[in-house]
């Protein structure tokens, strides 16, 4: 019943490396196609997670329709920032995990906490082999009434909290969350808070685009919105005339 699941020390047995290079396989990598921030907050009925749909290639916004929020099983959603190919690989591992769990047919299924723990082990063990999956993951879900929201980074740092973010979101969104998040927000309040943070990220993160998805996980199930655009404001006198009164144009 076990397929080829990731295991400790796996990186050293690279299955697809058709290489004759002598010495240990070196895998220290660089990210190529990357996603930027993922945001997550708990609210009254569950968890909300949001991300834009950009896949950047260095400074170029190369792909504008990359879905960085994916469901895993019935109770859990994973959002990823960082290298997209590694995220696609993680989804493949989680898919196999969920399938394996389903095949037991024992009336039980994995909770978001279980999936978080599994991902933590993968990320940390690969980090120890100098072959990381170059992602920061946000895991959220609801099971048996318990709301769960956590983060795993590419070096295996893991934690849970009432509100989380990855990348730029840590610097721009978390302070907003610290000020304005409170226990038992309604769905409308939660979305408003996320959209406020997403708007700031669009203004101030060069890798962000104005095309976002918000996922809502509740006891009833998971719903990921179609991509949509945020309202932005540029109509300020100071923007139209930034250098009024200044000599020169700066």
């Amino acid at each position, binding site marked *: 019943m076990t397929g080829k699941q990731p295991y400790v020390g796996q990186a050293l047995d*690279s*299955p*697809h*490396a*058709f*290489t004759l*290079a002598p010495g240990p396989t*070196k*895998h*220290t*990598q660089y*990210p*190529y*196609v990357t996603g930027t921030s993922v945001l997550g907050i708990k609210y009254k009925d569950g968890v909300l997670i949001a991300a834009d749909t950009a*896949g950047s*290639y260095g400074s*170029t916004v*190369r*792909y504008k*329709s*990359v879905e960085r929020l994916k469901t895993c099983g019935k109770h859990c959603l994973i959002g990823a920032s960082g*290298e*997209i*190919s590694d995220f*696609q*690989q993680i989804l493949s591992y989680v898919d196999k995990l969920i399938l394996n769990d389903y095949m037991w047919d024992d009336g039980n299924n994995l909770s978001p906490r279980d999936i978080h723990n599994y991902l933590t082990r993968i990320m940390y063990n690969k980090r120890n082999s100098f072959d990381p999956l170059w992602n920061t993951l946000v895991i959220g879900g609801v099971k048996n009434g318990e709301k769960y929201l956590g983060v795993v980074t590419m070096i295996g740092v893991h934690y849970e909290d009432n509100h989380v973010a990855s990348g730029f979101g840590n610097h721009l969104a978390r302070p907003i969350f610290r000020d304005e998040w409170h226990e038992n927000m309604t769905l409308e309040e939660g979305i408003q808070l996320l959209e406020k943070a997403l708007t700031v990220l669009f203004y101030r993160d060069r890798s962000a685009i104005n095309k976002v998805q918000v996922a809502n996980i509740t006891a009833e199930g998971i719903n990921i919105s179609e991509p949509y655009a945020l309202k932005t404001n540029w109509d300020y006198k100071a923007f139209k005339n930034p250098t009024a009164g200044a000599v020169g144009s700066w």
Partner: protein
Amino acid sequence: MEEFGCEWNDAPHSMGTTIMAVQYEGGVILGADSRTTTGAYVANRASDKITELTDNVYICRSGSAADSQIVSDYSRYFLNQHTIQLGRDATVKTAANIVRELSYGNKSFLECGLIVAGWDKYENGSVYSIPLGGTILRLPFSTGGSGSSYLYGFLDQAWKDGMNKEEAEALVVKAVSLAMARDGSSGGVVRTVIIDSSGVTRNFYPGDKLPLYYEEIPYRPTVEPMSA
């Protein structure tokens, strides 16, 4: 022992390149330039960067020539076995995923950006982009190679959904020619491959027959010898 290497002789063969694939109503169009360079020298001015993987699936290659060739060869080998075992044509999705397995699994060794496109009876035409790193994305159209930098703005404006075969091919030829006009690593001729339910058609657009753009001048044989 002294090093005798010259940078232009010894630099790895790279396909600076402009590659592109577009999905249309009944199939796909693949397009590419034909320049292969070793440093600044054009090693091959008429390369064929659109390579066959199966009867119904082709691949556009960019980046390191050696890397893209070996990935294509292994993919063709695995797909050949797969087709025999499956008993019918491989799907474009399967072909693209085999290319991705190689690209992702050897990511620290390879430097090639690939576009896999073709026709199968389940999805009709499909285009899969497999950039550096081994991400796989199905898209209505995709570009790659150094020349593609010059096409983002052009295609944002010129690509429309629901093009027919003639419009799609015209777009590919125009885009690749525009990139060749500005990218030093792209040039030569434009090759296109059209794949649909009835099979594969190859087209050839020689470099001197391509449209001329800003500050380019036509060839005119001199009628009078130059006067003193």
